[in-house]
Structure formats: structure tokens, C-alpha cells
């Protein structure tokens, strides 16, 4: 489509403005992270005097992140993998109507998006079942196959021709084999998006581990952030470093996955 010069200028101007709104706060975070506490107190807004990447090391040690990070990796990878797998187990037969009451189950699962917060009964239940203060118990509680990933899978699989199933079955391919060998690669964009969204939730969880995991040795990386909240005095530069340390792994994951995001979202919007 032909486009006038002025409208092109307008478009870039808008994008530039929006970019500022998004990048400047994040740059400000970095700016704070590069200061000493004294420097921050004296001139909170001024540009940092020099790169102080050592702040990251200080924050890493003070937050005791090395102690917690493997727990986070464990919780995030296991629950994300399990949730995605279960979403697929749920989505495929429902999208294909291979089980009875597919529509009803679909709606039932959709309700998971807006159910009232179950925190207290859930805690009670977890205690009764002996899931309290166990790592796998926490992971079990965080695992589900009904969230947004499920909805996207259903939408996406519906757009995949059913003839594929039939053709594969003709060749003697079984149900499970079909899911893992044929469907899996096909749904890659949704997979990527689902992984991202699920991982964000688990990685950033603060309340869950505080409640369900009482032993310090089970705490995830978010616990390290607590080290920078003095009750009486926050060390903002180190807190900023801590925040960036916690966010970094997700941002790296995101940088690999982001190119799938649009096609993943596309699947989600096929049908709600």
C-alpha cells in the first residue's frame, strides 16, 4: 500500500514515543543499579558515574542467589514441562472431540481463568495431603493443564487438519506416538508461548513458596530479593541489581522464544 511521507514520520514518532515509555523506566533501573547507595541518595536521577558491575556480584552474594537458583530452575522447568504436557493431553482430544462432552469440559477448564482465589482451602488441603513443605508437593500444586496454554492449544489444534490424524493412524501410528512425534513439532509456536507464560508465573512466584515451603533450603530465587528489603532501610542499588538478576534468566528465555509469540497468540485467538 502506498503511504505518504508524513504518515511515515507520524508512525515513527509514535513508536519512538512508546519506546521511551517502555525503555526509560528499565534504563532507570539499570542506572540505579550502577550506583553506590551514597551516590543514589545524593543524586537519584543523575546518570551513574561509572559502570559498577561489581554491584551485581555484591547483590548475588548478599542475596545468596547461588543457594536458591537451582530450586527455581527445578520448580520452573518441572512444572512448566508438566503443565505443557498436561495441557496438550487435555487440548488434543477436546479440540478433536475424541472424548464425550468435549465442549463442556472445555468450558469447565476455561473457568479456571476466573475462579475465586482458593488460597486458604488449598493450603488446608495441601497440609492434609502431606504436600506442605515438600518440593514435589509445591510443584504438584503449581502444575495444571487448564490455563491459557490449554486454550491456545485447543485453538491451534483446531486449525490443524483432522486428516492428518487419520493418515497417521492409517500408517499405524498410535495415539501417544502421534502426540509426541507429529503434533508436538506442529504446535511449536503455541508450545513456545505456553512455556513462556507458564514459566513466568512459576519463576516470579513469591507468595507460594513462602506459604508452602517452610525450609530455607527449598526456597526459590525470589527469596533472595528479601535480603534487600531492610525493614527500615532499603538499599536501592542492590535491590535494582537483585531485580535484574532474577529477571535475567526469563529475559534470556524470552529472547529465544519471542519470535514465536505472535503465531502463538494467533492460535489463542482462533476461538476463546
Amino acid at each position, binding site marked *: 500500500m502506498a503511504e505518504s511521507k508524513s504518515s511515515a514520520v507520524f*508512525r515513527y514518532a*509514535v*513508536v519512538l514515543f*512508546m519506546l521511551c515509555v*517502555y*525503555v526509560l*523506566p528499565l534504563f*532507570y*533501573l539499570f542506572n*540505579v543499579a550502577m550506583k553506590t547507595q551514597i551516590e543514589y541518595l545524593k543524586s537519584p*536521577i543523575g546518570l551513574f558515574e561509572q559502570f559498577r558491575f561489581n554491584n551485581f556480584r555484591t547483590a548475588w552474594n548478599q542475596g545468596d542467589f547461588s543457594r536458591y537458583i537451582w530450586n527455581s530452575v527445578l520448580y520452573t522447568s518441572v512444572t512448566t514441562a508438566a503443565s505443557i504436557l498436561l*495441557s496438550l*493431553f487435555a487440548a*488434543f482430544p*477436546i479440540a478433536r472431540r*475424541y*472424548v464425550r462432552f468435549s465442549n463442556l*469440559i472445555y468450558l469447565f*477448564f476455561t*473457568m*479456571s*481463568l*476466573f475462579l*475465586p*482465589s*482458593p*488460597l*486458604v*482451602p488449598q493450603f488446608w*488441603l495441601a497440609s492434609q495431603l502431606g504436600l506442605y513443605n515438600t518440593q514435589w508437593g509445591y510443584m*504438584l500444586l503449581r*502444575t*495444571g*493443564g487448564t490455563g491459557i496454554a*490449554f486454550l491456545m492449544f485447543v485453538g491451534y489444534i483446531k486449525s490443524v487438519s483432522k486428516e492428518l*490424524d487419520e493418515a497417521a*493412524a*492409517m500408517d499405524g501410528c*498410535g*495415539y501417544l506416538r502421534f502426540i509426541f512425534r507429529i503434533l508436538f513439532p506442529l504446535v511449536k509456536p503455541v508450545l513456545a508461548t505456553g512455556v*513462556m507464560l507458564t514459566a*513466568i508465573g512459576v519463576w516470579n512466584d513469591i507468595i507460594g513458596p513462602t506459604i508452602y515451603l517452610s525450609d530455607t533450603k527449598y526456597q526459590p530465587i525470589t527469596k533472595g530479593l528479601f535480603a534487600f528489603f531492610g525493614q527500615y532501610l532499603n538499599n*536501592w542499588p542492590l*535491590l*535494582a541489581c537483585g*531485580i535484574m538478576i*532474577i*529477571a535475567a534468566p*526469563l529475559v534470556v528465555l*524470552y529472547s529465544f522464544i*519471542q519470535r514465536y*509469540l*505472535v503465531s502463538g*497468540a*494467533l*492460535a*489463542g*485467538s*482462533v476461538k*476463546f
Partner: protein
Amino acid sequence: MYPFGRGIARHLPLALLMIPLLLYVVFAFGPSMATVFFSFTDATGIPGVRWHFVGFDNYRKLLFSSDQAERLRSIRNSLEFAFLVVVIQNAIGLFMAVLLNRKLKGDAFYRATFFLPVVLGVTVSGLVWRMMLNPMSGPMGELFKMFGTRSNFLSSYDAAFYWIIFVQIWMYMGYSMTIFIAGLQSIPRDLYDSGHIDGASGWKAFRYITFPMIAPAVTVNTLLSIIGALQTFDIIYVLTNGGFNTRTLALDVYRDAIANNTTADYGLASAGAMVLFLFVFVFTVVFMYLLRRREVDL
């Protein structure tokens, strides 16, 4: 028809489906529904304390007690929050999607940047904006000064609530935008070409071709942002903890469920959660109905 064999094999899909179904019923749906039950009791969350059925007392307490003014304001705040977030977030999201959907240098980078807050999560985004909006040491204060004005931002009784809305939109605009872009990309190119012949261009093309075609994306975005906005409390907790007229129903539920100096009023929190659920449910159903009908009409 089910192509993957008969007999035992026929039941495999159901068997596998049972795993997520069971997890969901046991750990999410069941406990959620227990909330209905607790909302009619005086449960406190203290072990060993007997609780009793109190009928609709908690609902009465929630809506007609002597602190009614604040409770009702919480509800009004929730609705206002949801309305503004849904409208503004989706308007900006759609606008940016349309801008970025056309050839623009570095569009992938822009998209990634706008989505980044979703990745960073509430704690990080919240803390960043707390620093940004600190009236004494934050850059926003300086910016306002340049325009010869000042604000207390997150501790202003008039403005704090709107700053929270701003941060919420900042966080999730990228999400809406991504879904809109996906919707836009699904529109076949030739539709515009044939439209062009019919004289549709610019605004007209948008109104009569683009907008109808992205109806599913509109539906998804509207519903997700309604649900998200009504249930949000964590960002409010991080930014103001409910001070300065920023309490919402969802935040009240959270606060009532935790013992502070007085005991946790779990019954009251459950009643609040039920009212909130009712809002979400009704809005979701109504909007789904309206938006679906529109999708069909077009």
C-alpha cells in the same frame, strides 16, 4: 471418528485427559468452590477454633456494614479499574498493532520491548514504577517539574488510583498488542486488494475490513483484560498497599484473608471473593455473548 484404534486404545485420550482434569478439580476447582461454603461461615483460619454457619452475615458485613462507604468504593474502584484498563489497554494495543503490522524498521525489536513487562512480572515492574514515581527522587517528579507542576503520584488521594491503572496498562499493553498483531496477520492480503478496487482505503479499510476480521482477537483481548483487571491485586499491593483511595475488591479479599492485628476474617474474605467472582462471571458471559454475536453478524 476416532482413528487411533479400538478397545483399550479407544480410552487412551480420556485416560490422559483425566490427569489434568483431576489435578484441576482437586487443587483448583474444588478449593475455589469451598470458598462458596466458607462465605457462609465465621471461619477465622485459626486452628482449633470452632466455626459456625452464619447465613448471609458475611455478605451483609461486606455490603451494609458501618464501613460501607469504603467497601462500596472498593467495588466501584474495581469496576472503574476494569473499565479503564480494558478500554485504554486495548485501544493502545490495537493502535500499536496496526502501526507495527506494516513494514517498519526494527518492528521485531519494538514488539519484544512492549512485551517485556509481562516477562518481568509484577514485582519487578511494580518496584521500577515505585522508583520512577517517587515524588522526591524519581524521574517523573523531575519531568513534572519541567512543566511547572508537581504531584505526589502514588500517594495522592486523587491521582494514585490512576497511576496504578497506568502501570497496569504499561504492563499488559504488549500482551494485547501481540494478540492483535496475530489477528491482523491472519487477514488475507487479497481482501485489501479487492477492497481497494471497491474504493476502501485508510480509515474505511480499517473500519470495514480490518476491524471485522480481527473480531476474534477483540473478543480474546476484551475477556482476558476484564478478567485480569478485576482480579488484580498484586500490583496495587506493591504500589500503594491500598492506601490513598486505591483499594479494590480483589485487594480487600486478600487483606481480609490475612491476620494483621486482628484475626483473619476468612468468612468475610470468602464472601468478597464470591462477589468478585460474580462480577467476573457476569461480565465474561455478557461480553462473550455480545462479542460473539458481533462476530457472527459480520
